[in-house]
């Protein structure tokens, strides 16, 4: 299990050992896509960001957790229970937000709430109306006239009104304008102050996750690249910039991938110490953002594929 570095000061979570989500050796194939032996876990009380380019397998993982698609092998445990054997019990404690909130457009939010609420023993109308008020959502207007932001907020309101302990969100901030995105991120930050709640949040907007996630799980082409605390990710990866004369086939090996131009090179390293030994002070070290990590890791994958193609 990953040992998190605590960076929210409000409460002490080191003593917690229970995982809200445990995924081990998860595999699924359809068509050209293969989700390949993915394993990671999310401890109780934290936010995990699931990142990766489009089509990397983020939605597949989320759909498998929700039993919307079938896994081919591997285990998924939610709250320590098998997600299939205890499907109803597990889903009662999950709040699910899908990337496209698909509702009956002919209903109002209030009518839709009345349709959904009876399924949850813990449904709390007071929470629902509080959130509706907070997000300034119209209760009586038909959902079909809602903007994308309003529809996503409605989806979040519905997902949170039954005191869910685990909130699973698939790209909740994509397609939203910066104002609504910031508003939602602030809300998630507030929400996670309740240490019984955990959030799994997939996004390719990495800046959102840099702001709120405790853990980052990076999936690329169906494979797990890493699953670490955010601090560990930023400590292990670094962006290195220097002159092209420093690059040769040996020095290139210390990078995940390198991009050169007439002005010099920029590369991503996942072993800063080793890179320092090679280049010393001749290069500049910058903090790598999640976007940089995604970009260079993807570049490496593309390069590997190209190399393989050239070989044959």
């Amino acid at each position, binding site marked *: 299990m990953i040992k998190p570095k605590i960076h929210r000061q409000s409460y002490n979570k080191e003593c917690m050992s229970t995982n809200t989500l445990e995924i081990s050796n998860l595999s699924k194939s359809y068509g050209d896509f293969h989700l390949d032996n993915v394993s990671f876990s999310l401890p109780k009380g934290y936010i995990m960001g699931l990142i990766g380019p489009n089509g990397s397998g983020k939605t597949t993982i989320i759909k498998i957790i929700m039993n919307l698609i079938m896994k081919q092998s591997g285990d998924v445990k939610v709250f320590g229970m098998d997600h299939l054997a205890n499907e109803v019990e597990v*889903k009662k404690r999950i709040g699910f937000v899908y990337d496209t909130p698909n509702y009956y457009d002919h209903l109002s939010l209030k009518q839709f709430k009345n349709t959904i609420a009876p*399924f949850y023993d813990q449904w709390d109308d007071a929470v629902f109306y509080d959130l509706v008020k907070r997000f300034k959502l119209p209760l009586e207007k038909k959902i079909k006239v809602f903007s994308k932001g309003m529809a996503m907020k409605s989806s979040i309101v519905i997902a949170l009104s039954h005191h869910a302990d685990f909130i699973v969100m698939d790209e909740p901030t994509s397609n939203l304008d910066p104002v609504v995105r910031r508003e939602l991120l602030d809300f998630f930050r507030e929400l996670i102050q309740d240490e019984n709640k955990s959030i799994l949040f997939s996004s390719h907007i990495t800046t959102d996750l840099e702001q709120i996630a405790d853990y980052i799980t990076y999936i690329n082409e169906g494979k797990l690249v890493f699953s670490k605390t955010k601090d560990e990710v930023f400590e292990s990866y670094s962006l290195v910039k220097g002159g092209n004369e420093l690059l040769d086939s040996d020095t290139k090996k210390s990078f995940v991938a390198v991009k050169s131009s007439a002005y010099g090179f920029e590369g991503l390293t996942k072993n800063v110490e080793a890179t320092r030994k090679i280049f010393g002070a001749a290069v500049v070290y910058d903090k790598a953002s999640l976007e940089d990590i995604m970009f260079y890791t993807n570049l490496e994958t593309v390069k590997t594929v190209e190399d393989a193609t050239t070989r044959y």
Partner: protein
Amino acid sequence: MLRLVIKDFRANWKYVALGLGVLFALSSSFMYTALKAPFSVDPDLLIYFLLVIVSSVVFTLLFLMIEQLYNTNIIFASLPISRRQFVVQRYVATYLQLLLGFGFHFIGLQIGIYFSEGIDQVVEDQVYNPRVWLLVLLFVMSVKAFSMPFYFKHGLRKGILIIGLVQCFSCIAFVYIMMSYTQIWDALQRLIFTVISFNSQVTIPICIGVTVLFLWISTQVSILIYKSKDL
């Protein structure tokens, strides 16, 4: 389970009301118009029951159509319900719709007859014969039981296409065989009349039993399909 069934009716009650209104109008207007001219059991009453069958089958697709229209299956599949419950709910909702549809057809028929100039005794005997209505209902239930696994496997559009093609080819094959081999047609007619002339206290329970068995098999097949389906 009940919550699931209520969910569909509650969320779509306007569409349900509209659909039932259409069935009511179809029956009453058909009867009113048909009874103005000389009305016979064959073909007028047969056409009427054909109308009841087709319109009721279409009406029972309402919830599936709405689900496909708004693509709500992912949201509802994420609710705390098992896939088995989801399938059983679909069947219960469909058969409730069917019963409602038949009810409104029957009421529409009464209105049509009431406002027309009267009805022939032979026709009246058939129109008000509960056995006829029950057999038609059981037939539609069997048709639905046959179709449902296709909807769960392929979705509504592809499912309708497959069932339509199967029914179309079966119909053509049936007509072809009956026209080519008249002795088979005669034997079939004799069989039907023999069955009908049997004691209804025996034939009706047998028909109900066969339909329920067919329905149970269909539900199990649908559960098996839906349990391993990627949404």
